């Protein structure tokens, strides 16, 4: 069942001199199985949005409907159930690690829910597999011996072990190298394909979202300013730039080629696809020259 957001407004420290509007009048439907990327400058309300979806924050106004339940109406002592369904991976999840080895760390969540030893074991194993952490190799390692990327993946596995139906990731790629990002892309894609997990990823770098998302949302000043499919980026370069976001280079190249009058297909996602389109176009050009 999809997530429906109806007219959500959130104001921090309402009624004090420090009052700050984070989100204003958000209307949004998130379909099942979607991988949604949310972009925006710092302070645009991205993180607030995620915390609203998993019940850590409550909106000042509006409804958030997850699986047909309005989670804004759920009492505080039952909200934990929502957090299991809607798993939120915080920025720098490696900071929250506190157990002495990787297995115990990932097992903490399920155990805390009262799941028995055997099922916990299964869950930890799957979570580790999904995040590309080899079970035998990593289960007994101490978290502080791991590399930054590996720690990050343990942090994500912590949440995956709860078997959430929706996964929210806040800046999962921050301070990771290409290899680290690639591993996380793989996890997200696999999770999406095998379990159909709806995923929402927040990032301030559009380039990081392009390889994995299929829908893009740009927030600015607490409002949704742009809501497009990911392969439509090249069509909206101007709008994206006006919002203070720098678009991926390959989309920009395609946009300018198109603008110069080249008859090129700009509906692409990755750099490789863009290169192929350009090559294809150059090929047709060659043929024209030959036949002409």
């Amino acid at each position, binding site marked *: 069942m999809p997530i429906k957001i109806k007219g959500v407004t959130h104001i921090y420290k309402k009624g004090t001199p420090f009052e700050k509007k984070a989100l204003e009048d958000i209307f949004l439907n998130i379909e099942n199985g979607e991988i949604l990327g949310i972009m925006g400058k710092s302070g645009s309300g991205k993180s607030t949005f995620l915390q609203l979806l998993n019940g850590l924050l409550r909106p000042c106004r509006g409804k958030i409907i997850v699986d047909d339940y309005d989670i804004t109406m759920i009492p*505080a002592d039952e909200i934990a159930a929502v*957090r299991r369904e809607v*798993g939120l991976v*915080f920025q720098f999840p490696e900071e*929250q690690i*506190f157990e002495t080895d990787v297995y115990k760390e990932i097992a903490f969540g399920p155990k*805390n829910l009262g799941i028995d030893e055997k099922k916990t074991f299964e869950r930890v194993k799957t979570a580790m597999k999904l995040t590309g952490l080899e079970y035998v190799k990593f289960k007994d390692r101490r978290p502080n011996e791991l590399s930054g990327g590996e720690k990050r993946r343990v942090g994500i596995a912590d949440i995956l072990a709860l078997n959430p139906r929706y996964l929210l990731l806040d800046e999962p790629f921050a301070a990771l190298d290409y290899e680290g990002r690639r591993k996380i892309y793989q996890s997200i894609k696999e999770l999406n394909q095998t379990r159909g997990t709806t995923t929402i990823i927040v990032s301030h770098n559009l380039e990081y979202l392009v390889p994995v998302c299929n829908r893009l949302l740009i927030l600015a000043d607490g409002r949704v300013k742009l809501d497009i499919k990911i392969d439509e980026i090249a069509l909206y370069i101007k709008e994206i730039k006006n919002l203070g976001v720098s678009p991926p280079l390959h989309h920009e190249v395609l946009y300018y080629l198109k603008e110069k009058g080249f008859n090129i297909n700009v509906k692409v996602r990755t750099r490789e696809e863009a290169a192929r389109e350009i090559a294809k176009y150059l090929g047709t050009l060659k043929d024209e020259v030959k036949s002409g």
Partner: protein
Amino acid sequence: MVKNIGLGQYIPGNSILHRLDPRSKVIGTVILVVGTFTSAYPVETGIFLGTVLILGALSQVGIRYYFDSLKPLLYLILITAFFQVLLAEEELGQRFDAALNLGLRLFIIIFSMQVLMGTTSPLSLTSGMEKMLSPLKRIKFPVHELIMIMTISLRFIPLYIEDWERIKKAQMSRGINFEEKSIIKRLKNYISVLIPLLRISFQRAVDLATAMESRCYQGEGERSHLNVLKFTPYDFMYIGIIGGVWLITIWL
């Protein structure tokens, strides 16, 4: 975010007390504290009470501030007074009197500290302390280092509060319930916040040390200051008035 105003938090402002030199405020507070302890009950203590209340009004940080930050200390005062009533070896009437005496003194002392902390930024407070303690440098006492440690720890408190809130939220989204009914379970759950917090603070300490060293920071040696502290006539007046109050109570 932590809701109420923290104990001893600085409230920016531009009152007479805000503009005073931190050194004179520290000296004034010390006189008030010593004077209150040595004063005779009730007249002299009453004079000190009046003095701190006037100072509180002059500080212009609002009654709310004093009320909010005194609230947790009210328990301390009440408990102390309670034991005074319960355990002292005098007659009941006298015991109540003694309890009130003690409670009042505690209140005055805490209140005068509040005036100091509310009107003096941590930075100027520590630099004032450094100036005041500088004679100790002659006997090789590491004044500057000590003050640096104080400044850093004061600076880091808000960061830890932020970390605490953030990690707590992260653990909540892992299904940890901090509203657990059983206290033991709740405390156990807080371990999941404390351990990461400890690790982060160690990391931060190491990072800060590296950053300071890479900028060639050295504690010893003459360091100059951007804002040089200077006594004004107001400062002498302030110390004079408070010192005068003290002398009057001694004379009484």
